[in-house]
């Protein structure tokens, strides 16, 4: 009897794996489709992935540069500071928003054909990840450009370690995306609520301001530090802007937070996915 249930478990596990292998081309097609369709009818096409963060950063620098930029002691270059936070935040908010809608938008397929449904939130996060990686070119351009001015940012080997916060952020996005995509199937309101939440998150993450230079209430500061994006953005800035090793506590906290999100998301998704078809 015991042997039989164990065999059954192995069968189930290998079904998950064989499904993933069988449908991995679907994953890459979803990623390709999302990227291609996003910019299809625009004149500049894929250049918008570069242009959009560039322009929004210019706007933010104009609006906040005078106010926060001068006040921010210990920041060698406010534009780079802004860009680091902005790019990471954009990837998080866009990928999770798109993952959230992915199940509803693929209802036509899910209702008709058997597909591993997690491919849709996962594919949306990956496609946003690809455009995010492309948009990093802007950051590289600014780093090089400022290299010739007196606002030059010290480039050290630590810049290579910036892959660590990026990887953690990716895990976080997958986890949050899975949770949200499941929730949005059952409660459409979640989509609107999440838009508001993202706005709050923008201000709860030190993108335009520096936490230390603000005279903040102790509890507000604690709230901001509990935000995993605070740790991830902080790590990224340490590597890119300050050219030093990142804080290990930041890594431990954000990684643990992200892994827990993935576990919760995977369990929720697995438990509820058979019911999706009844609600979409």
């Amino acid at each position, binding site marked *: 009897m015991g042997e039989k249930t164990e065999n059954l478990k192995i069968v189930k596990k290998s079904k998950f794996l064989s499904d993933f292998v069988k449908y991995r081309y*679907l994953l*890459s097609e979803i990623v390709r*489709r999302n990227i291609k369709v996003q910019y299809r009818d625009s004149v500049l096409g894929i250049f918008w992935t570069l242009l959009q963060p560039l322009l929004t950063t210019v706007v933010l620098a104009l609006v906040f540069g005078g106010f926060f930029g001068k006040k921010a002691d210990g920041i060698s270059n406010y534009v780079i500071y802004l860009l680091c936070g902005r790019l990471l935040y954009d990837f998080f908010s866009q990928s999770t928003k798109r993952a959230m809608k992915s199940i509803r938008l693929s209802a*036509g397929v899910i209702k008709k054909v058997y597909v591993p449904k997690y491919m849709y939130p996962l594919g949306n996060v990956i496609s946003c990840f690809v455009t995010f990686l492309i948009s990093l070119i802007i950051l590289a351009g600014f780093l090089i450009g400022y290299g010739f001015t007196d606002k030059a940012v010290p480039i050290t080997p630590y810049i290579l370690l910036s892959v660590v916060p990026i990887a953690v952020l990716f895990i976080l996005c997958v986890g949050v995306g899975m949770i949200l995509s499941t929730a949005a199937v059952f*409660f*459409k309101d*979640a989509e609107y609520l999440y838009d508001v939440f993202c706005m709050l998150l923008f201000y709860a993450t030190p993108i335009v301001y520096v936490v230390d230079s603000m005279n903040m209430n102790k509890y507000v500061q604690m709230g901001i530090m509990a935000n995993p994006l605070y740790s991830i953005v902080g790590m990224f800035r340490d590597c890119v802007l300050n050219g030093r090793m990142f804080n290990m506590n930041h890594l431990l906290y954000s990684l643990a937070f992200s892994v827990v999100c993935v576990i919760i998301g995977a369990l929720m998704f697995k438990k509820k996915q058979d019911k999706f078809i009844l609600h979409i």
Partner: protein
Amino acid sequence: MENNIAVKVENVSVMFNLNKEKVDNIKEYFIKLVTRKLRFTEFWALQDVSFTIEKGERLGVLGFNGAGKSTLLKTVAGVLKPTKGSVEVEGVIAPLLELGAGFDSNYTGKENVFLYGATMGYSRKYIEERYDDIVAFAELGDFIDVPIKNYSSGMRARLGFSIATAVDPEVLILDEVLSVGDAKFKAKSEKKVQSMFDKGVTVLFVSHNTAQVRRLCNKAIILDHGKVVASGEANEVCDKYDALVKGGKK
């Protein structure tokens, strides 16, 4: 599963919750939870349905509207999980339910061929090998590089049909899709389906039309209110169904 059985449906029951009022936002949900107005009515779309289809057999499923035919097809296709019982399918299954469901309207015909193929679980190489056949069969010509949103519904259906039948499935699920496109394409698609029959594909065919079932199938069942009320040779079952229809009209 024994070697010669392609589809095995065992004691399958599917239950839906019929909400008296649809609750799809959090506020309403909590209000109803607190006021205990959250009632569900159970509705059994399928009840204890069992049948097997042997390899190469063609089973027709007859039944009136709301008898559970579509629910049955969805459970066999693996889209819907049965509340009770089990469904086993041996081999590659191609559902020909509502063609073109997996299309992206901003994508061109060519891109959609690959997207649709991927949705059905095929690799890029596999689709590339069949790409020319698919395009030729759909008779789209230069339109293959035009976004699908500019297609007529007939063109969409033709492309969907071509992709779905370009692969060599072992089990084919047909949901009255044989009426695709104009008369010319209709004849062509029936011929294509017939050639798949000749290759020994197993078929599950849903219809109201007993003439079609008699022509295409060698076995049939009648579903009524989620239960199998008759099963056996196609002609016998069709006679029973025709009698039922006449009885209903009286």
